[in-house]
């Protein structure tokens, strides 16, 4: 090992110098973030004064790559934006592209899309709920929920062929059909999940140590929500009743209506109950979809060239409104695809919710918005409070051996 390398490794995790404020790096590689993302926290004792996220650790350049690939290849590319809500991405992209043409997609395919989307919502919410246990040090809850989540993953694998990246929705319909065996398995498992969720509902509202970590933590008021436009459960926990599935139905959501649950508390506990209620509701929607599932083909042949035009399309991903803007110029490749993922919309709100909270709340609140940085891979430094100065740029310090942070420059 060379001297330079040795020096680097020893400097590594140590602390170089103290900055005037107590600065704590949160990430980019941190045990409570499953993905690299960097949050610069400025503390007074244990209290957080400012939060400055730096995004871009997962930036890959997908939007650019989409312009150079064909319409069909892009399905698989967009699906791999995120490993949790992968189906929401492929659903938004395929439905958006189909809306540019005159083709009629079989109704059965639309129902199947709803089915998988709801299964994915269950898996995503359960994953998040398990992680709430993980962040609050309640490993038992984490293990139990992930144990039950396996049932959903089994279903997804049995129907689509993969646990994570489903590759199910395609231009012109869906790639696989249901079999009678799968239908009965689906019914059985949704019943099981509903049953388990009932237990977790009582547990998260009654286990005192857990409640003390979630109740009243990160208050989000309606006024702030209207200003900062968060989406999904975060918006609904502030009391605003807004769900794309209900307001602007896509796929088969006209026929299978969701029940939108809101809460006025605006804290992490209300997020828990909203997400759990959505899981129960998704189970209901799945059995409803199975009851009404029409017969027929699941796929129609689709052209490789899409007519010229713009499509604005959004779906309700597990984390909230996922927006796609698709512009076609009549060639085999899209002209521009813009993706706005729910986490980007929610990040400002999370930073606002964190201010004035103790350090111990960071993982709970920050991850309470259910961030999915793989989706987002864009953005930076935020400070909503207008009286504060902006601080960015100028490298000074290596933190946790991995991170440079930025400050100086730019005023409001």
């Amino acid at each position: 090992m060379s001297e330079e390398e040795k020096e680097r490794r020893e400097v590594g995790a140590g602390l170089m110098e103290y900055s005037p404020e107590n600065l704590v790096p949160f990430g980019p590689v941190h045990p409570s973030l499953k993905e690299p993302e960097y949050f610069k926290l400025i503390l007074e004792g244990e209290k957080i004064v400012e939060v400055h996220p730096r995004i871009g650790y997962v930036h890959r350049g997908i939007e650019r790559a989409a312009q150079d690939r064909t319409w069909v290849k892009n399905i698989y590319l967009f699906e791999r934006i995120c490993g949790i809500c992968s189906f929401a991405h492929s659903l938004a992209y395929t439905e958006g592209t189909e809306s540019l043409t005159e083709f009629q997609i079989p109704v059965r395919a639309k129902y199947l899309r709803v089915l998988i989307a709801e299964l994915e919502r269950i898996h995503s919410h359960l994953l998040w709920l398990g992680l709430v246990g993980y962040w609050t040090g309640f490993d038992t809850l984490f293990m139990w929920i992930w144990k039950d989540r396996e049932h959903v993953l089994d279903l997804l694998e049995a129907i689509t062929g993969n646990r994570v990246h489903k590759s199910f929705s395609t231009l012109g319909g869906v790639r696989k059909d249901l079999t009678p065996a799968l239908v009965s398995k689906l019914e059985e498992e949704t019943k099981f999940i509903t049953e388990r969720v009932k237990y977790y509902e009582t547990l998260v509202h009654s286990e005192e140590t857990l409640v003390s970590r979630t109740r009243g933590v990160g208050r989000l008021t309606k006024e702030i929500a209207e200003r900062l436009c968060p989406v999904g459960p975060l918006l609904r926990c502030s009391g605003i009743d807004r769900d794309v599935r209900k307001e602007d139905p896509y796929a088969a959501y006209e026929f299978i209506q969701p029940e939108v649950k809101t809460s006025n508390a605006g804290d992490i506990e209300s997020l828990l109950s909203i997400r759990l209620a959505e899981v129960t509701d998704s189970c209901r929607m799945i059995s409803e979809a199975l009851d009404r599932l029409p017969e027929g083909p699941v796929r129609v042949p689709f052209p490789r060239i899409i007519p010229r035009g713009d499509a604005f399309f959004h779906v309700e991903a597990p984390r909230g409104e996922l927006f796609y803007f698709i512009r076609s110029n009549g060639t085999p490749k899209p002209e521009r695809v813009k993706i706005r993922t729910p986490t980007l919309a929610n990040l400002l709100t999370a930073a606002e919710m964190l201010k004035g909270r103790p350090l111990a709340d960071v993982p709970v609140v920050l991850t309470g918005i259910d961030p999915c940085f793989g989706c987002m891979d864009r953005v930076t430094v935020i400070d909503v409070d207008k009286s504060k100065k902006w601080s960015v740029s100028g490298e000074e310090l290596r933190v946790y051996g991995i991170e440079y942070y930025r400050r100086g420059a730019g005023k409001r």
Partner: protein
Amino acid sequence: MSKKRIGKALGEMFKTAMEEPVTVKYPFGAVIVAERFRGKLDVDPIRCTGCGVCEIVCPAGVITMVPVGKRSIGQREIEVKKPVFDLYTCISCGQCVEDCRFGALALTNKFELAVFDKGSLIMKKALKVVQ
């Protein structure tokens, strides 16, 4: 909403401890993989005609067509190409299987693919059969 209490999870904990653990036997026993599971890509060298459609549709750039020889059709002599699969970067999406008109490609349910040498994941099976 039920009453707040410390140790609410205790009952369920003991219940779980009494039950059989859900853990799979895997490394010490067989594993059941779903029928539709998309695992390792496999090619049938005899059916493959070297048309090159798979190379065009593959989203991950797994497939490259390499020339393996020449063949004469009537007066003309054309170059015969066969696919080489860089399976290490394959995403098992199945688009090539869908678009192969000759049924030469298939996704198996093999998943135990860990290797010490990346090169051994390059599949050159299709090159051997040249008519």
